[in-house]
């Protein structure tokens, strides 16, 4: 790159060096904000996971016997949904990995608005603390969908507080999205053209568009809920002239695109991991980039497929059905492209790669069952049953959480400077994959058999499948807890990862691990495309290493 004109002889100081609490809480370093998010989403993930564990225990038997009352169960599944979606799945990859990596990947010093970035974390924490507070002092029993008129007129729980918490958290999402869009437009290093951007950046760009355009609609809907509850203004309640279906339209206008807020960043991670561990350029770069944007755009047009049996017009149902089929096509393109990227590669199977390959399998099943839900006549039968529960867990847990864990393992050496124990990593990937399938595959069968969702008690004939599901959940729980331990333990060792343990080609791997406060020591100029891997060279290096090892 360019010759250093002014030599600054300060030793490179990594971003983790300062230890005071103040240095963390007042930081404007995108990497530190990423770490703040990492700690908080991890806490929320395990809180939401604990709720899921209790629910699975309750559902082991057809009678209600673990939790004292149906109300306790209803509050539990509401909080599981609210916490996992708004406080884990939506922020996880963009706010942790995106914050940390986006500036590094485009050769920038920081995000465009570092203080807004810190503000987004505080806003998120205010919403999150309110969420936990609600859980301790009473809870909400409406489900995360807050359907009216139950939520506005009949529920006697803390719906307004929950609406406010969700409203506040939404702003954190909007701030992050704005920051990413402006950063990608204005902070790219010289030579980093749009088609030299890593696919990670493309996906986050598409995600940010949804965050900025969709989240305000969520904010509007939850505020309308609060107004309706407090003042009975009659927007949703038919008894005073309102329309309960209106709420569903408003709610899903955000919440369906939100599914893509959760899963597009997952695509981002997988698109980085696979070429690195296959050691070859990704197949169909432009197709994957455009597919991300296409998914973001189409994502806004399909909200009505949540409402085929809601009483909306059947002609509306027809339009939403065909659009939902169309959104599957860019997703299919991605799956085929990732698979084709394995062809003629030099494949290594480290933990991130195992997570990424598992992701492809689970996302494929999740996506194809989505076609069944887009099929009107089948949706009529399986709507609001465990089939839907299984489907969206395949996408959101099988997809997003697998990708998140893969990404955490992939970039852990960069973030912390430490290598994690590979053998434990592989074990966790295996446990998560097996546990996940055992938990959620039986739920497809349960749903087709007719077990409705959100049931505290159920018919005895559904028990065998529920027991299988609960058994799977216990394996899954072990798979999730393991990385928490070995990743934290790895921090006790000195930084041993080196700048580029995987031999990857992104800009983030050109700087030391952990990166210095200012990311780059000299101006970055980009002169080549991303993913400049060579499988043949990788083979030569491998053969050489083997010889050295054997000698």
């Amino acid at each position, binding site marked *: 790159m360019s010759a250093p004109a002014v030599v600054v002889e300060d030793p490179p100081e990594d971003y983790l060096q300062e230890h005071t609490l103040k240095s963390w809480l007042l930081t404007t370093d995108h990497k530190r904000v990423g770490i703040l998010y990492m700690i908080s989403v991890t806490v929320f993930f395990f809180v939401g996971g604990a709720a899921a564990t209790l629910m699975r225990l309750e559902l082991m038997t057809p009678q209600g016997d673990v939790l004292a009352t149906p109300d306790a169960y209803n509050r539990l599944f509401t909080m599981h949904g609210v916490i996992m979606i708004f406080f884990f799945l939506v922020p996880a990859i963009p706010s942790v990995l995106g914050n940390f990596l986006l500036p590094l990947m485009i050769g920038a010093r920081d995000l465009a608005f570092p203080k807004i970035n810190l503000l987004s974390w505080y806003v998120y924490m205010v919403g999150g603390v309110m969420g936990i507070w609600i859980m301790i002092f009473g809870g909400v029993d409406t489900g995360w969908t807050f359907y009216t008129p139950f939520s506005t007129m009949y529920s006697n729980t803390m719906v307004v507080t929950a609406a406010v918490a969700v409203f506040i958290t939404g702003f954190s999402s909007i701030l992050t999205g704005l920051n990413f869009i402006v950063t990608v437009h204005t902070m790219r290093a010289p030579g980093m053209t749009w088609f030299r951007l890593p696919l990670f950046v493309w996906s986050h760009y598409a995600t940010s568009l949804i965050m900025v355009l969709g989240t305000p609609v969520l904010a509007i809907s939850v505020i309308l809920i609060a107004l309706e509850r407090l003042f009975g203004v009659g927007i949703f309640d038919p008894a005073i002239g309102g329309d309960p279906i209106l709420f569903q339209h408003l709610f899903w206008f955000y919440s369906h695109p939100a599914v893509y807020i959760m899963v597009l960043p997952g695509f981002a991670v997988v698109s980085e991991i696979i070429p690195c561990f296959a050691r070859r350029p990704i197949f169909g770069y432009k197709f994957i980039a455009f597919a991300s944007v296409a998914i973001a755009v189409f994502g806004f047009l399909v909200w009505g497929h949540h409402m085929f049996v809601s009483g909306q017009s059947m002609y509306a149902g027809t339009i939403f059905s065909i659009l939902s*089929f169309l959104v599957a096509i860019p997703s299919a393109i991605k799956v085929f492209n990732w698979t084709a990227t394995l062809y003629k*590669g*030099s494949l290594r199977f480290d933990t991130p790669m195992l997570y990424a390959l598992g992701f492809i399998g689970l996302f494929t099943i999740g996506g194809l069952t989505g076609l069944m839900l887009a099929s009107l006549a089948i949706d*009529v039968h399986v709507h609001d049953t465990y089939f839907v529960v299984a489907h969206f867990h395949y996408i959101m847990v099988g997809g997003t959480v697998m990708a998140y864990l893969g990404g955490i393992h992939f970039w852990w050496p960069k973030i912390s400077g430490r290598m994690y124990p590979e053998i434990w990593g592989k074990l966790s990937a295996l446990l998560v994959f097996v546990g996940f399938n055992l938990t959620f595959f039986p739920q497809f069968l349960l749903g087709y058999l007719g077990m409705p969702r959100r049931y505290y008690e159920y018919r005895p004939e559904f028990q065998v499948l529920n027991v299988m599901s609960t058994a799977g959940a216990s394996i899954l729980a072990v798979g999730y807890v393991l990385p928490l331990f070995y990743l934290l333990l790895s921090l006790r060792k000195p930084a041993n990862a080196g700048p580029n343990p995987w031999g990857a080609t992104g800009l983030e791997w050109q700087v030391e691990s952990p990166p210095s406060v200012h990311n780059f020591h000299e101006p970055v100029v980009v002169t080549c495309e991303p993913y400049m891997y060579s499988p043949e060279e990788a083979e030569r290096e491998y053969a050489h290493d083997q010889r050295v090892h054997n000698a």
Partner: protein
Amino acid sequence: MWDFPLFPEQASSNAQKVDALMLFEVGILLFFTILICVLILVFSLRFRRGARVDRSHPPTHGKAMETVWIIVPLLISIVMFVWSTRLFFELYEAPPDAAEISVVGKQWMWYLQHPQGRAETNELHVPLGQAVKLNMTSQDVIHSFFIPAFRIKQDVLPGRYTSLWFRPTKVGVYDLFCAEYCGTNHSIMIGKVHVMEPADYEQWLSAKGVGPSQAEEGEQLFVQHHCAGCHRGSQTVNAPRLEGVYGKPVPIQKGKDVGFVTADDRYIRDSILMPKSEVVAGYEPLMPSYKDQISEPDLLKIIAYIKSIATRETSQ
């Protein structure tokens, strides 16, 4: 307790059709999932690091291949779409001979009434082979009427009528669930559907003695609530007569213009509860609202009565 079904019973004409489409889609799902898994496994073994294979010039894109994998999913999607949409439309076009049963959802029970008058709670008796159309509404929150063995479901909304029809094909007892989360006891809002031989059904209908039919009860309510005072007979107040009105377009005064609205269940319900919103052209908006005075099941009975006089001539 350990009985372990993998496929729900098929007990309506709709069930077989939905299952056929479902099996087709499961086939597609298995094909692509297995294809992807096999490709991943084959590539993983063949191109694992250290394996001696040709790795020269890995393809970075392929127009032909990418076109294929856009076109193929598109075609498959279109097949699924057309097939499923046709089945879906059938579900909302009840045959003309369908018997109409009223359904009212309420936290946390189902109230059902047969046209012949007999009402029941959380139990629905229907004759084998006879098309049944459900006219449904809710008294409080949104519920969802779901009979897995018939592969049908429809949300039941407060303040609005939705409908659904089915033709049972197998004698037996089937679960009736509420599928839309409706509050504390959502999971025990369960009913039973009894599909009976037509003769048994006739016997069941009259087992409690032949009571007034739904329309007859509706007529009594019509008189009790003083609807009859204006809408028939003495004509001390200028109100439209209701004979022959049901199902016909009604002229509505909208400002200076006159628009037409079909006098269906919704219109009649709204005219009772919100009489000033759609006033028939040429009449004064004098009628008081009956909001909170007539229950949902009673509204359904009054509608059944007005429907029963649909073929009578108006005197005007």
